[in-house]
C-alpha cells in the first residue's frame, strides 16, 4: 500500500482537455510530493521566461506525501506556480480540507496549463474530472462561490472547494486562493495566476482511499504525538505571555525557545496568541517597520488577545491536526462567523498601521479572506500609503479626499475595500508596494518594504536576522515560513540529524549576526528541512513544536515504507531547495539583487525599542548560506557539482527529464 497515488492530473485550459500522468516510485523518492514534485514538474514543463499571467504559466495544487495516511499535521496543500508578484518561483501553503480532497480525487497534484477564454471550474468526483462553466460564479466572493458550488454538487460526498474571490479575478498581484470558507493560500500572488487562467474554482468530491504502508506503526506514532503536543495553558492569561516577551526582549543575552510553548499557545489562542510576546520582544513591526512598541504605549492592554478568545465560538482544526490553532469567531451583531485573526493579520492591520481597532481588523480580515487577498501584503500596502501620505508623497487630491493618517480606521477601510476590487485610489496598491512605489516619487522606494516584490511577513530581522536572511535568500522571497534562527531552536533537528549542534539556551546577542559555521549550518538545515516537510504536506506550526515531539521522519518511513535516514530526507530537502533556485536562475533572476529592504537591516538603526542600535550585514549572511548549501558563494547560483551531486543534471538541461 502506498500513501501516494502515483498520478498527477494535467488540465489544459486552452483546449478544455485533461490527461493523467503516471509517475514512478523513483520520482517520489527523489522529489517527495507537494512542493518537491511541484518544482520538478514545473521545471520540466514550463517554458523559461513564461509570462506569469499568460497561458504558459503552470498552476499546481499539490498534496503532500503523508497527507491522508494517518499521521498528524498533514492536512496542508501547496499552490505552486511562477509568481506574478516577484517573477520568481512561487508557492503558497494552506490548510483546511483541500489537501486530503486532492488525494481522494485520485491525484498527488492537479496542474493547470493554458488559459480558458471564459470562466470555468474543475469538478472531480468518482467518475473523473469535468471542466464546467463558471460564469454564474464569476464576480462572486470565494465564500459565496464555495457555498453555491457545494450546493450544486451536493451528492453523497460533500465536496471540498478552492476558489478565487474578486481580487484574483481582477488579477491583483497580492491575491490568493481560498478554501474552507476563508482559509487562504495568500502569498506569491497565485490568485492572479488562477484568475488569468479564468479558473474560478476547483471542486473535489472524490472518495479514493489513502493508506499507509504500515498503518499500525503510523497510528502508534500519531497517538504518541497527540499526547506529546498537549500543553494545557488554559489558565495562562495573555498578560503573562506579554510579560514573557518583554523580559526576553530586554535580556542582555539571547535566549532560545522551546516548541512545546508554541504548541500550548497555538492550542489556546492560535497564532495570534504570540502577538503580545512578539510585541514585547521586538519581533512585531510598528508603523511600516519604522516605529517601535513605544510608539503605541500600552498596545498589549488595548489589544488583548484574550478578547479574541471571548469571541471564539469553537476551535477550527485543519484536517489531520490534533492541535486546532484555528477558530471560528463572531462579533454579535457586527461580524458574522469567520476564521479568527492570525498573528500575521493582526500585525498587518494593527501595529503596522498604528491601529488598535480590533473590530475593524476582524471586519477587514473577513473581507480579504472572502475576496481572496493576502492580508500580509495588503496591510503592508496600506502602511506604505500612510507613510507616503505622512511624507507628502501622496496627497488628499490623490486619495479623492481621504486622509491617510496613521491609525485611521476610516482610511484603512476605504483603502482595503478599494484594493480588493482594484478601484479608486486603492487600485494603486492592488499590485503590492513595489509597483505602487514605482508610480510615486523616487524616494518612495525606500518606504516600500519588500524582498523581490513580496511584502515581508511580520517578524523583525533586527531581532532575528535569520528572518531577513531567509526572506532574501530563499527562492520564494519575503516569507517568514522559509526559515529563521528561531526555527532552528524550535525544530530541534539535532535530536534526529547527525552533525547538527544543539542550540544553547543562552547566547551572546551579537553572535546572531555572525555568518559562522553554527549559524550557517543551522540556516541551511532549516531550509532543507522546510522543503522536506513541505514535500510531505506537513504544517509549519506543527513542525515548530519540534521533531522530538512531532515525529515527521518516523512517519515518513512508516507511511512510505522507505526506511530512509533523517539525513537522507534532509538531502532530498536540499535537492528541492536547489531546484527551486535553479528555476529562478533560468528565469534570469539575480539572487544578489533580492534583499529585504534596508530598513529591516537596521539602516538606519532604530533609536528606541528592543532592537535599538541594531544593524547588520545581510550580504555576509547570504554568502555564508550560499557557500554552506553548495551554491556559488559570490553569485548564489547552484554550482555544477552541487547540481550533479543532487542528481539534477538531467532535469536542468534543455528538454530535461525528472
Amino acid at each position, binding site marked *: 500500500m502506498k500513501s501516494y497515488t502515483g498520478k498527477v492530473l494535467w488540465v489544459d485550459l486552452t483546449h478544455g482537455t485533461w490527461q493523467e500522468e503516471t509517475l514512478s516510485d523513483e520520482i517520489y523518492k527523489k522529489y517527495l510530493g507537494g512542493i518537491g514534485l511541484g518544482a520538478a514538474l514545473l521545471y520540466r514543463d514550463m517554458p523559461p521566461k513564461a509570462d506569469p499571467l499568460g497561458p504558459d504559466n503552470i498552476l499546481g495544487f499539490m498534496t503532500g506525501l503523508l497527507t*491522508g495516511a*494517518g*499521521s*498528524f499535521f498533514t492536512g496542508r496543500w501547496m499552490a505552486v506556480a511562477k509568481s506574478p508578484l516577484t517573477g520568481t518561483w512561487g508557492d503558497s501553503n494552506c490548510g483546511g*480540507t483541500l489537501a*486530503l*480532497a486532492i488525494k*481522494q480525487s485520485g491525484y498527488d497534484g492537479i496542474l493547470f496549463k493554458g488559459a480558458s477564454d471564459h470562466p470555468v471550474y474543475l469538478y472531480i*468526483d*468518482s*467518475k473523473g474530472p469535468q471542466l464546467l462553466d463558471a460564469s454564474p460564479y464569476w464576480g462572486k466572493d470565494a465564500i459565496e462561490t464555495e457555498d453555491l458550488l457545494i450546493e450544486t454538487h451536493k451528492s*453523497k*460526498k*460533500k465536496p471540498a472547494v478552492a476558489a478565487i474571490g474578486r481580487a484574483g479575478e481582477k488579477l491583483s498581484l497580492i491575491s490568493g486562493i481560498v478554501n474552507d470558507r476563508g482559509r487562504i493560500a495568500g502569498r506569491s500572488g497565485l490568485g492572479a495566476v488562477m484568475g488569468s487562467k479564468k479558473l474560478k474554482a476547483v471542486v473535489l468530491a472524490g*472518495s*479514493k*482511499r489513502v493508506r499507509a504502508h504500515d*498503518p499500525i506503526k*503510523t*497510528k502508534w506514532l*500519531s*497517538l504518541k504525538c*497527540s499526547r506529546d503536543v498537549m500543553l494545557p495553558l488554559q489558565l495562562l492569561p495573555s498578560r503573562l505571555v506579554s510579560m514573557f516577551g518583554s523580559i526576553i526582549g530586554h535580556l542582555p543575552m539571547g535566549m532560545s525557545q522551546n516548541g512545546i510553548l508554541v504548541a500550548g499557545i497555538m492550542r489556546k489562542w492560535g497564532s495570534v496568541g504570540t502577538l503580545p510576546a512578539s510585541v514585547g520582544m521586538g519581533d512585531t513591526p510598528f508603523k511600516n517597520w519604522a516605529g517601535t512598541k513605544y510608539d503605541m504605549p500600552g498596545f498589549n492592554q488595548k489589544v488583548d488577545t484574550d478578547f479574541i478568545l471571548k469571541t471564539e*465560538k*469553537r*476551535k477550527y*482544526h485543519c*484536517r*489531520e*491536526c*490534533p492541535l*486546532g490553532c484555528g477558530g471560528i469567531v463572531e462579533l454579535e451583531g457586527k461580524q458574522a462567523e469567520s476564521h479568527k485573526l492570525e498573528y500575521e493579520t493582526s500585525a498587518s492591520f494593527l501595529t503596522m498601521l498604528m491601529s488598535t481597532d480590533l473590530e475593524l481588523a476582524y471586519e477587514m480580515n473577513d473581507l480579504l479572506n472572502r475576496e481572496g487577498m493576502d492580508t500580509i501584503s495588503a496591510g503592508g500596502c496600506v502602511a506604505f500609503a500612510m507613510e507616503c501620505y505622512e511624507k507628502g508623497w501622496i496627497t488628499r487630491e490623490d486619495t479623492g479626499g481621504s486622509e491617510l493618517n496613521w491609525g485611521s480606521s476610516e482610511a484603512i477601510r476605504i483603502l482595503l475595500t478599494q484594493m480588493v476590487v482594484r478601484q479608486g485610489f486603492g487600485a494603486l496598491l492592488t499590485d503590492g508596494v513595489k509597483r505602487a512605489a514605482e508610480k510615486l516619487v523616487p524616494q518612495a522606494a525606500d518606504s516600500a518594504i519588500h524582498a523581490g516584490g513580496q511584502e515581508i511577513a511580520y517578524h523583525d530581522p533586527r531581532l532575528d536576522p535569520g528572518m531577513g536572511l531567509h526572506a532574501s535568500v530563499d527562492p520564494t522571497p519575503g516569507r517568514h515560513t522559509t526559515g529563521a534562527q528561531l526555527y532552528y531552536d524550535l525544530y530541534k533537528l539535532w535530536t534526529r540529524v547527525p552533525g547538527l549542534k544543539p542550540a544553547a539556551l543562552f547566547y551572546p546577542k551579537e553572535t546572531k549576526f555572525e555568518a559562522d559555521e553554527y549559524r550557517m549550518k543551522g540556516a541551511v538545515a532549516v531550509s532543507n528541512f522546510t522543503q522536506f516537510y513541505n514535500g510531505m504536506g506537513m504544517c509549519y506550526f506543527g513542525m515548530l513544536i519540534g521533531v522530538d515531539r512531532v515525529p515527521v521522519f518516523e512517519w515518513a518511513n512508516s507511511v512510505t515504507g522507505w526506511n530512509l535516514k533523517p539525513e537522507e530526507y534532509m538531502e532530498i530537502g536540499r535537492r528541492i531547495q536547489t531546484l527551486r533556485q535553479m528555476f529562478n536562475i533560468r528565469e534570469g533572476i539575480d539572487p544578489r539583487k533580492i534583499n529585504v529592504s534596508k530598513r529591516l537591516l537596521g539602516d538606519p538603526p532604530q533609536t528606541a525599542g528592543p532592537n535599538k542600535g541594531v544593524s547588520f550585514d545581510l550580504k555576509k549572511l547570504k554568502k555564508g548560506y550560499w557557500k554552506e548549501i553548495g551554491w556559488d558563494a559570490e553569485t548564489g547560483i547552484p554550482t555544477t557539482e552541487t547540481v550533479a551531486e543532487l542528481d539534477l543534471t538531467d532535469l536542468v538541461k534543455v528538454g530535461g527529464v525528472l
Partner: protein
Amino acid sequence: MTHTIIEACTGCTACVKICPVAAISGERKHMHVINAAICIDCGACGRICPSASIINEEGELCQSLKKSMWLKPVVLQSKCVACGACIQVCPTSVLEFDETSGEHVIPTLFDEKNCIGCSFCEAACPTHAIEMSVPAMSKT
C-alpha cells in the same frame, strides 16, 4: 481486485442505489457490473445484495446483512482529538462535527440512516477514537 458481481445477480439494483461512488451499472433484471477503477471497496453492495452475488476484494462471497445490523461508528470523546480525518474519509459525508460538543468540537454520526457501515472512519482515525458497533445491539 475490487468488489465484483457474479452471475447469480438478479439485477435488482439495490447495489446501485447504495454504492457511494456510483461504481455499479446495469439494467434492471440484468446482471450488473462494478467498475474496478471507481470501486473503493466499501463493501456496501455486498451487505445489501439479497441474492449473494457479490465477491469482495479478497475473493470471498459477501454476506448480506439486514441494514439494522450494519456497523455504525461511535466516537469516543475521551480519545478524539478533533482532527476530522474520519469526516473527510466518509464516502457518504454522514459524519460532521457536533458544534455543541465543546471547544474542540468532535464528530457525530448525524445521518445514521445513510451510513453504509464501511468502517473507513474507524480505519482513518489516528487515535483509535472510533469504535464500530451495531446500534440495535448496543442499545439492548
